[in-house]
């Protein structure tokens, strides 16, 4: 079971969390202005890298807050977590 660093509560076991998929996928301010291709890209396309990956996590059985975390998909190591709205701290972000 992973230990996930909640930026509000500290390290907690994976059981307390819910993963919300890839982070930093912005919802358009005016979705009606987005064409079909770009909209389906937004809805359905996600990265699947081997290595560092920014994900949304929700501390569902804790503080209930959403945050982002960088996880190495090969080793499951959490490099860093940060609050919603904060910039991705590492270079190499999408």
């Amino acid at each position: 079971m992973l230990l996930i660093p909640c930026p509000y509560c500290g390290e907690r076991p994976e059981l307390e969390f819910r993963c919300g998929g890839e982070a930093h996928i912005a919802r358009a301010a005016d979705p009606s202005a987005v064409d079909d291709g770009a909209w389906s890209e937004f809805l359905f396309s996600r990265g699947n890298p081997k290595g560092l990956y920014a994900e949304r996590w929700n501390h569902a059985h804790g503080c209930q807050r959403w945050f982002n975390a960088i996880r190495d998909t090969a080793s499951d190591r959490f490099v860093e977590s940060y609050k919603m709205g904060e910039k991705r701290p590492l270079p190499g972000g999408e």
Partner: protein
Amino acid sequence: MAGVNRLPRGGRIDRAKPVSISFNGQTLSGYAGDTVASLLLANGIHLVGRSFKYHRPRGILSHGSDEPNALLSIDRGPGKIDPNNRATVAEARGGLVTASQNHWPSLNFDVGAINDRLSPIFVAGFYYKTFMWPRRFWDRVYEPNIRAAAGLGKSPDGPDADRYGNRHAHCDVLVVGAGPAGLAAALAASEGGKRIILADEQAEFGGSLLHDVTSTVDGTAAQDWAAQAIAMLKARENVTLLTRTTAFGYYNHNHVAMAERITDHLENAPDHLPRERLWQVRAGAVILATGSHERPLVFADNDRPGIMLAESIRAFVNRYAVAPGRRIVIATSGASAYRAAADAHAAGLAVTVVDIRLEADCGPEVAFVRQKGIDVLTSHTVIAATGRKRVTGLIVAPLGSEGRVGARRTLAADCVGMSGGWTPSVHLFSQSRGKLRFDDAIDAFVPGQSVQAERSAGAARGSYDLADCIADGFAAGDPLTARPRLAATPSLTGFQPVRILPTDADATRVRAFVDFQNDVTAKDIGLAVREGFESVEHVKRYTTTGMATDQGKTSNMNALGLMAGIQGKALPAVGTTTFRPPYTPVTFGTLVGPAKNALFDPARITPIHGWAKEHGAEFENVGLWKRAWYFPQGRETMHEAVARECKAVREGVGIFDASTLGKIEVVGPDAAEFMNRIYINAWTKLKPGACRYGLMLKEDGFIMDDGVVARLAEDRFHVTTTTGGAARVLQHMEDYLQTEWPDLRVFLTSITEQYAVIALQGPKAREVIAPLVSDIDLSGEAFPHMTVRTGFICGVPTRLFRVSFTGELGFEINVPSDHGRAVWEAIYERGRAFGITPYGTETMHVLRAERGFIIVGQETDGTVTPDDVGLGGMIAKAKPDFVGKRSLARPDIVAAGRKQLIGLVTDDPSLVLDEGAQIIDDRHRPVPIKALGHVTSSYWSAACGRSIALALVAGGRERMGETLYVTTPDSFAAARVTAPVFFDEKGARVHA
């Protein structure tokens, strides 16, 4: 003295505490401190089982958890019987009933042993090659027979009578293994006050020192040094000591699972203790001091009872004071077995050593034992063992230059100790995803690159010398402090790896076992490689070497070495198979722990649950909720009860527990704006006191949830959700609020558990509650359909909704949960004069289907849009955006031919279609026929006097009046397409 082969002196057994156990019906005695294996050997019993495939007689190979052969069924009382217990691990205690396995009619005479004579047939891949044709034999003949013949023990068929515990623990350092390295590591690590857990699978700490009676450490006997170390650890409050505890799984982020065996060794276990306990430890650092396993030698008939690992002879003699034989031959390719020879000799047993190595390649060990008068034959090979149910001797021969085998001679023996060198126990290290490295010097894989905060120490790291192990343990436990190296007796180490002993016998007839538990011979490995299996993982699966309960602890390196030799590769190029948890078998009970029966899953019950139960309700599970399904009276069937309940609601009044509805309060200055963005409906103009049916989409445009929403004040909405969707909806709302619109000033609070909801439905509903309600004008003009009022009922504050999911005049009475049952009972009492009828979820489903109201998850399946179910009109088109709006313009969603919700009435009014049944338009079309859709809801409708159904059908709204065909279990039923409403089509009754 207990047992003919019990030595008169020594051992760690307690001679003051005799115990007796039963083995195959025979009562045998031993002492406290014995394992079942040592007790059997003390009584002269070597034959303890039959092998898996060939039913060959098998004995005890080892003295620990790596045992592949001596697997017994152990019966500790009713409901407490287990198969496949390792006799070398199970502690002997009074009342234990043990039995050997895999034979018929008896251990001594086993009909299945015919397989051994037929062994040329039963080679690797026998099943794959043999049971292919004819096809119809697969499930009728082959599988039942193979299943009947397979397996070793019999699994118990009754429920497990034992209790199991579960504990989570945190520590700074977890030390696995309490041999010399582990003890040293725990001592060093715990000195500064860090929280330490030290766990060992054996009944006593000490590891290999428990059978080392000759070594000294720091000037004292090694066993005394261990005892002092244990006493020091016990005195430290920051140290938790766990014996009989096996760390069996090493998972992510230093999460280690351990099984603690608590009562199996107790004759009269106190009732309050669980049998076993699962420990889930999260450790800052882990030290793996897991020791090493001895390798058997591969020669013909090396599996005869009485042939065991050399170190095991040493353990039986020194630790258990048992003579496993009186005439012992030690066959070895390394030095450590000489210590076993010396110890057996010291116990008064006759010993001869046969060493495959050239005299020149041997170390001081040869002179060491010769000095004691022990015969040593160096440069000799073992051709074969003699004897069948017990070894009677070894046929040996000198090895000439270039491996020429000289003249055979037979050494009589009633016990043989073999040693092919050592293999570090890297299982947990490998499970931690650490990378193994091959060390040529010791012919073994050793821990290389660590991935987690972990370090191996001692023999687990390939360090076999006692003083080295202790020094390594100190360094592992506290890398920052240099400790003086403790002097210890030099261990006899070093060996020459031999994959298979040289022989002059016909290679096709030699049965030299590599994997004892799976009956895999050296020949099988060769066959697999010849047949083209190159990868070690493939050879493992094809031959089954390294599988089953022992996971190849003794056999893997020999199998790998053989493969490498045949393929002409270096051993590291062959690689090793993946180590997976569990390290040793774990009972299901330990994994399940207390989570069974009522504790398997939490049950959520409403405040009215008790009343429903007392009134005979049948319940159904909805998520974790228990919901009243229907209330049968007398001998009513479900069908009869539901028909009666439906009639009562349509004609009189029914009462229904809707407390499970999800409820969320959306509060704040921006609450209406938030609601606008989350729901497809418009909320800005909804007045306080009014309700609206709300529909919520996911971003992909498909329906996610629905429910009535009441606006209690400008800045306060009382949202209801489906029973199953409550948590999901709150999460969805929080997600958007926190991540997309953090600027909105809104709070979301779950109030599901805070309110009991009593639905009172039917033409007489108003009359029933009228005298109970205060501060609310119940008249139709003052309190119309789809409004909400606050006031009191029975003196209890209520949020009173005038809403209906049945199509009748109705109220949903929200009261604080603690008052739920009292208010329910008051309404029920008052309603008796009006024939009030409690109804359950089934009736609720029928009533809403008659009116064509959808249930999310029944009419929808995650691919259904508002327009698909005829609710497109609810979309507030003027809103610039809401979750899912953009997706409703996606090409596939605006395309023609989407499945739409329609009604179906069968030509045969008495036929109730199956929910989920497929629908086609022409039953005479050749198969395969593309289905147009499926039935989503189907019931008998008492109000309509016939069956009714809802369905999703491609282009459904264009098909009004068409006849379609619906699958039935044996044919098709014709049904006509109608609008999805069957009763009170105008919806007038709710306004009564």
